[in-house]
């Protein structure tokens, strides 16, 4: 296998890794916000249950969660887990896991807002929903962006865990090519791919931070 073929194969694998990356963000970012509401809920039962959810999701390895989400339906209900379920399980496990982390990041942002802002908004006649979406959330996003960037970059590298349930993303392909060629070249290529992608993520996030920095 020549070098251009290795590049081509790994680029194809990178697309699959990016598929996991993008879909995970699409589902986990909104889900995280909902979970953070549950976590901050005045209802003790809801906040307790959500707290357990976050604790389990953060306290167990993502690799194990992938195995549970993929094989669980079979061992519990003898469900058929063939066909497209493998990919669905990958996205499901990643989204559920990352949502727990994002929830805590959202909470840190929301709880850092001074209560005076809520009172002022109330006096100005804002409803609770308006207060949150028009006043609080834009400031929260600004504040939590660096923490979110951290998680997002970790997510890029975590995509390689998908092979625990036999989903062949980029790193798996790199290992397979390395085994066939009996060299380490594919790993170096894989490292460069990950680095470039993360550099891109970092640059985009930095740009977003600058854009949101409208008061300075």
């Amino acid at each position: 296998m020549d070098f251009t073929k290795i590049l081509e194969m790994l680029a194809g694998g990178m697309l699959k890794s990016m598929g996991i990356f993008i879909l995970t963000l699409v589902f986990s970012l909104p889900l995280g916000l909902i979970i953070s509401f549950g976590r901050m809920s005045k209802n003790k039962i809801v906040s307790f249950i959500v707290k357990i959810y976050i604790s389990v999701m953060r306290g167990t390895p993502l690799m194990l969660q992938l195995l549970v989400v993929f094989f669980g339906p079979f061992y519990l209900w003898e469900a058929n887990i063939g066909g497209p379920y493998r990919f669905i399980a990958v996205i499901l496990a990643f989204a559920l896991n990352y949502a727990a982390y994002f929830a805590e990041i959202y909470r840190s942002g929301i709880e850092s807002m001074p209560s005076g802002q809520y009172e002022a908004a109330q006096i100005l006649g804002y409803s609770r929903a308006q207060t949150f979406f028009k006043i609080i959330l834009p400031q929260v996003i600004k504040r939590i962006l660096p923490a979110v960037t951290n998680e997002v970059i970790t997510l890029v590298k975590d995509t390689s865990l998908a092979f625990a349930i036999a989903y062949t993303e980029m790193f798996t392909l790199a290992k397979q090519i390395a085994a066939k060629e009996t060299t380490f070249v594919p790993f170096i290529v894989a490292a460069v791919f990950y680095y470039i992608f993360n550099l891109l993520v970092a640059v985009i996030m930095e740009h977003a931070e600058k854009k949101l920095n409208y008061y300075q």
Partner: protein
Amino acid sequence: MKKKILSVLLAAAMVGSLTVGCGSNSSEEKKDTAPTTEEGKETTEETEAKTETITSVAKKEGDTFTVGFDAEYPPYGYMDDNGDYTGFDLELAQAVCDLKGWKLVKTPIAWDSKDMELNSGSIDCIWNGFTMNGREDDYTWSDPYVDNSQVMVVSESSGIKDLAGLSGKIVGVQASSAALELLQDEEGQKKLADTFATLQEFPDYNSAFVELQAGSVDAIAMDVGVAKYQLETRGEGYAILDEELNTEKYAIGFRKDDTGTRDQVNEALKELVKDGTFTKLAEKYDIADMVCLKAE
């Protein structure tokens, strides 16, 4: 409310799968000691009546046949120059499928989860230089088709000439491999393994060979077919010890209750031996001296 249901479900699923996992494990161990063949099968059917519903039915023309394999295991299953999965075992599987009119699906799996993949029905069989010795009761096996042996690979400069020379040395072996099982088995080569300084487990042969080259391990235990492929592609500097650790057989592993598909594959293999396809493939992958399936 939704969050609540979701989190309860998740918690239940995690706890549930853990206990279920343990449960099936212990019953599997019991099955190992149970007498094989007919009697063993009956107890299996009772305890695992649930799993039986998935597939003990024989396959029909047009059905898919999903083969689980380790894609880092040349020459039996690996990626070719075009990026497609190939190898002696996979081409043989293709030939079986052509004969039977099945559609072959090649699923590279994480070797450590092979049993979960098989039992949950996401693959139909494990077909990838799969050693049957020592695992006789764990799977429904096809007829053995390759005579394999476990050997030691050393670097030529080390001066190690026989198994006795490995005393006090660091020996590498792939995790979850037949070689590792052999070196840990009291009736196998445990005595030999006890003379090693350390038995070091590796995820793949690529890193093991780099360590051998770098001198951080002194020898690697592996299947002879794999050893030949590695030595051929890596060139000079390595040697296979003449003394073998054992001899064993490769076969295709099916779910315990899945004798239907097994019988069909056996039948197809016999035909492939008869029409010469089997020998041709063995010659192509340079293992003609190792195959053991003969026309009757």
